[in-house]
């Protein structure tokens, strides 16, 4: 098992369905060897909507290519702080048949991203719903790690970064995806997610209904505090 991060190679593998745009692959290859965080800097905020959409395509492809089910896209509009809690004026949840409606999913997320916080359920759904128990088998574990990315967290994670594993910078934390050699049923994934969360001192988003931010969209939390939005993208473990 290789422990080297090889996102560029993974991204260009056949499982993605078609070759990535050259700029994205080059950027990934250029970034992963040494750049700390890709987000917020390598895409032009105004002009590269296609590039951001490509990031979303890569994210969903890594998670689900070769699998079937329903992808859950969750969007929140009007993000604001209600006390310490980030809340939305309204939310919506849509389901897309995967892979048949891949294009619609990516179009919807790209369209929503400038004004909405966009999340996906890392686990495909067996039906059009996100109730507990409705998840389909998954070939990834995930963990939501809030707060400072410490040396301890990094040291704990690096041994798990096998080929195909990746990390998304969510804006205020990191979402860690650990690749499995085969798809496991939701209960097994949940159990391993819990252990991964303990290892990384992660958040509680380990169950089959969890939502994580979609790469290529924006985290608008800091905008709600008067700052700018943060691009959700890749980063090193």
């Amino acid at each position: 098992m290789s422990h080297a991060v090889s996102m560029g190679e993974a991204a260009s593998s056949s499982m993605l369905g078609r070759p990535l745009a050259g700029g994205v692959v080059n950027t990934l290859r250029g970034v992963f060897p040494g750049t700390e965080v890709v987000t917020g800097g390598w895409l032009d905020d105004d002009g590269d909507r296609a590039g951001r959409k490509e990031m979303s395509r890569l994210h969903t492809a890594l998670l689900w290519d070769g699998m079937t089910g329903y992808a859950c896209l969750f969007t929140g509009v009007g993000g604001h702080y209600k006390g310490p809690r980030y809340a939305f004026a309204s939310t919506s949840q849509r389901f897309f048949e995967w892979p048949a409606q891949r294009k619609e999913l990516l179009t919807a997320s790209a369209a929503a991203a400038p004004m909405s916080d966009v999340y996906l359920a890392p686990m495909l759904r067996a039906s059009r719903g996100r109730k507990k128990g409705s998840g389909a088998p998954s070939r990834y574990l995930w963990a939501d790690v809030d707060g400072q990315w410490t040396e301890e967290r990094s040291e704990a994670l690096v041994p798990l970064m096998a080929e195909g594993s990746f990390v998304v910078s969510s804006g205020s934390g990191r979402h860690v995806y650990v690749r499995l050699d085969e798809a496991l049923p939701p209960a097994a994934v949940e159990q391993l997610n819990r252990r991964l969360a303990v290892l990384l001192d992660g958040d509680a988003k380990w169950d089959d209904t969890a939502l994580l931010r979609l790469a290529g969209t924006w985290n608008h939390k800091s905008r709600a505090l008067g700052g700018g939005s943060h691009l959700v993208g890749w980063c090193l473990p």
Partner: protein
Amino acid sequence: MPAVSGWSIEQLDALLPQVPATNGRPPVAPQEPTEPPENLPLSLVERANEECGANRSEQHFALVAACVDAGYDDEAVVAIVLNHKPTVDKYADPVAEAYRSLGKLRAARGPVVVKGPTRGDERFFVDWPEFWARDRRDADWAYEDVLARGRGHAIFAGHKVGKSLLVLFLVAQLVADGFVVLYLDYEMGEDDLHDRLDDMGYGPETDFSRLRYALLPSLPPLDEPEGAKALFAKLGAVAAEFPDRGVVVVIDTTGRAVVGEENSADTYRNFYRWTGIGLKQRDVTWVRLDHAGKDTAKGQRGSSGKGDDVDVVWRLVRVDGGLELRREASRMGWVPERVAFRQTDDPLRFVRVDEAWPAGTKETAEALAALGVSPEVGYRPAAKCLKAVGKGRRADLVAAAQKWRRETAKGLGEKE
């Protein structure tokens, strides 16, 4: 091009830590629904659900925040959360989620983390052996029957009833008993304070070194983090000077110590969020004085949320010969329903008595004595006598007057 292989479950089993049953948290029967506290705050649950619509995770977090704001400890919060259907439906491990939410909440309320007066940095976290060993069944008073040690209190009264006077008397007693008192007086001037202390018989010879009295203090509002930080800095200095003393903080009056609208529940939630919870974390006994609304019986002036953030709410009323604190709300079962004080004028004192005589008792007793009615006569014939001469009184007042006369005759008229 290497294939993407990934980890097998066996490999991960060796790499990932086992999840402990309680994840390092105190054992609180994590998977079994526990009985909620007897006074399960259904209103909190309903409020959390209403505020957050159908979003179960937000309902859950709002409930945890509301419980903390209401003063429940972690164990009680977990018990409440385990009886909160949206939480149980949403999370496979609601106990873990409750603790996680508590952690998030505390992280978000970071500014209250200022070195406290009685708990050093090493006491920032709960000392579990001490925590479990502490006997919580017994009453624990700073001022017996009135101020519970380490708790928040609201005392409200109508205009000029005497709440500031009574509390000043109480804190002088507390100082004499060894407490350190930090009194934030937003209403009186120096001359007023001098007159009151002089009336109580205190003077230059009195040791008030532990009474830190701030007249018209220039603190930032206590419903904002800056105000809390400034107050905690003062407390820290006092604690450093008197490290082994219990601390009492008095805020007289709340309406002048906050910047938010007095009618807004947010003002008092913010007060608790920034100041109240920090005082509680520091084991400080705190009291805030409030004005009653136009109808005293309806409670404190302004927001109905005012009583949510304290452990005890007292309504102060004037009764014949003194003052009486009447319990409006309490989280503890050991707080008495009424505490009566007889007021003496020279020197000014509030002497604890078993019960207060209703207003008009003495006057009625004098009227009965003037009519030659024996103190041993029952209240019905006594009331008829009064009515016959055009001085009819309520039955309870006549009964109290007769009792007062009998006890006065025995020298017990004022039961100290």
